[in-house]
Each structure stands twice: as structure tokens, then as C-alpha cells.
């Protein structure tokens, strides 16, 4: 199976159903409303539409993952998470590179994502990959205190 190299001795590969629990734990650390193990199992069984790219070490300890949803000639970044103690090491960029490399072999021409407008580090990363802001969704996110924040919608033409 295809493997991509990532910083810190990590590699990236397509996740398997057996990774669902670890992925759900990591997701819950990063997002207020984490998705369930069952939801991730659902995604992982449907690799053609919702593949999950997992960055892990040799012992299968997961440092980050990214999930996309692909429909026809469009794809969307559903979620991307890097473990708190593994951030600022280029793992997010490595995950994005793996996704873009993978999408070359699919009919996908346009790749979309949403990001909190205050998440400057992520926005910078996406801009470095050529994503451009195409819209805003105000009040899209809500944190555990009920505070709302705006999402930027960004897109990348895969040419």
C-alpha cells in the first residue's frame, strides 16, 4: 500500500477500521464535539468516499490524521487533527501533501475546506498550499461555552 513520509520519523498511510478508536480519541482532544468510534468506523469502511490519512510511528501510535469526503469531481477536508504535543513539526503539511498526491489519482478537480477565521496557523498552512478564501459562514462553529465563531470557506483548484 502507498506510504508517504512525514517529519519526526512518522509515515502516512490510509487508515484501517482497526484505527477507529485511536482516531476518535485524538479527534475528541481537538474538538469540543468529537465524533464517535462508530462514525469513524463508518468512514474507514468507505475508503473510496471518506478515506482517512493517518500519520503514525512504527509502533502505530497516531500523531495526526486527516479525513476527506470525495464526491464526483469535488472533495472536502472534513477534519484534520495533529496531537497537541506533535504540533508545529510539519505533520499537518505532510498530511495535506499526502491527500493532494492521493487526489491526483481521482477525478477530483476542486478541494474545499472550512476553517475557523481565528485559526491563523491553519489558514497560513492552507494558503501555502494555494487555497483561497471563497466565502464566510458566520456563527458556524460553537465552542463548549456556546461562543460562536466564523468559518472561512477555502478552495483549491487541482491543476
Amino acid at each position, binding site marked *: *500500500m*502507498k506510504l508517504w513520509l512525514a517529519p519526526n520519523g512518522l509515515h502516512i498511510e*490510509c487508515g484501517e477500521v482497526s484505527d477507529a478508536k485511536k482516531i476518535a480519541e485524538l479527534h475528541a482532544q481537538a474538538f469540543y464535539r468529537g*465524533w464517535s468510534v462508530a*462514525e469513524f468506523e*463508518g468512514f474507514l469502511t*468507505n*475508503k*473510496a*468516499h*471518506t*478515506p482517512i490519512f493517518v500519520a503514525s510511528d512504527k509502533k502505530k501510535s497516531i500523531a495526526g490524521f486527516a479525513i476527506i*469526503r470525495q*464526491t*464526483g*469531481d469535488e472533495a472536502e477536508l*472534513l477534519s484534520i487533527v495533529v496531537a497537541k504535543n506533535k504540533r508545529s513539526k510539519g505533520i499537518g503539511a505532510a498530511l495535506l*501533501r499526502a491527500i*493532494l*498526491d*492521493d487526489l*491526483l*489519482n*481521482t*477525478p*477530483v*478537480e476542486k478541494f474545499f475546506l472550512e476553517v475557523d477565521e481565528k485559526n491563523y496557523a491553519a489558514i497560513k498552512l492552507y*494558503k*501555502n*498550499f*494555494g487555497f483561497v478564501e471563497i466565502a464566510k459562514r458566520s456563527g458556524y462553529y460553537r465552542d463548549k461555552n456556546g461562543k460562536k465563531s466564523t468559518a472561512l470557506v477555502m478552495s483549491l483548484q*487541482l*491543476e
Partner: protein
Amino acid sequence: MSKILLAIDTSGARLQLALSAGDQIDILVKDIELGRFSKGFAEIIFDKIAEILKRNDIIYQQLERICVATGPGSFTGLRVGISAARGLALGLDIETIGIPNLLALSLTNEAKNFAIVIDARRNQSYAQNFYQAGEPNEEPKLLNFEDAFEIYKKHEFDDAIIDMKSFVDFGQSLDAAKFPANPCYVREADAKVQSKGLVI
């Protein structure tokens, strides 16, 4: 006398060009990088074609035939490579020949009755059986890789990089009417709705 032929392969993560003139074949390979500051196939293909022509003292008007890999492979790459080949051929009033990738990959195999099975990602594979090099006995198929390995008795994927020398040699003799430069995606753009709803 062999034709002055330009061959283009944009089906993978690298641009491969080959120029055949007289008994010489020159090959130019350039990796494609991903990201904002990198250049994709569309940005580099004509510069690289100019480069390989120039270093062989050939001008566009001397080209007699253009061969292009038609896939399956990188959808973006195939669109760029096939468009470039057809555009050039139209302008120069010469023939284009489209050679499907699995057929191209068969050319370096000296066995009889063998299969080529390559990684299509996401647990899938592209597979095709051949009587011998350059002679398929079925259409290319998209299969789960476990099924393909079982059917074709394989333990690993074949290398998916086209050997440009055999590609050029093969392209010299083909009939353009039988090998049109049309993309062969095998995996079609499917927009079917998922049966299980997503809660997102």
C-alpha cells in the same frame, strides 16, 4: 526509417518526455511537486518540450508523430498531457497516438500470458491480462487489490512507471486510427450518493 517522434507521459507524479530522432532516443524526466510554490504539469510541460527539442536540435515543424500515455493514472496529469499532445498535433498537422498505461507497462515484460496489476490507491488496483508484451487479452479493469492479487496470482503491485524507450519504439509503428489519444480513466468520475448518511 523511424519517424521523428515526441512521447509524453503525464500519468504519474512525474513528467516524462522522450524524443526519438534517427536512431537516437533522448529522455527528460521532471518530478512534479505539490503546493503553492511548485509547478504542476500545466506550468512546465511546454518549457520541458522546448528543452528536449532544443537539446536535440529539432524544431516543432520537424515532428512527425506525438505519442501520449492515456492512463489510467493522474486525472489532472492526463488532462494536461493529452490536451498538449492533441493541441500540438493539430497545429503541426501530424498524428497523435494514445497508448494506455497498462499496455505501455506490458512492453518490458518478456513473458507469455502475464498480468499487470498496479496500485490504484484506496485498496484498489488497475489490472489487465496480456498474451505477451503489447498484446492484451482483456480490457483494463478496476478491482479491489486483494481480488486482483488472487485472480492474477500476484503478491505485490507492478511498477507503474512507463519505460519511455519501449513506449517510443512501440509508438513508431502504431495505427493512429486504432490508438486515439483519448483518456482511459478506468475509474470514472462517480457522483453516487452514499447509502449511509453522514452526520456532519
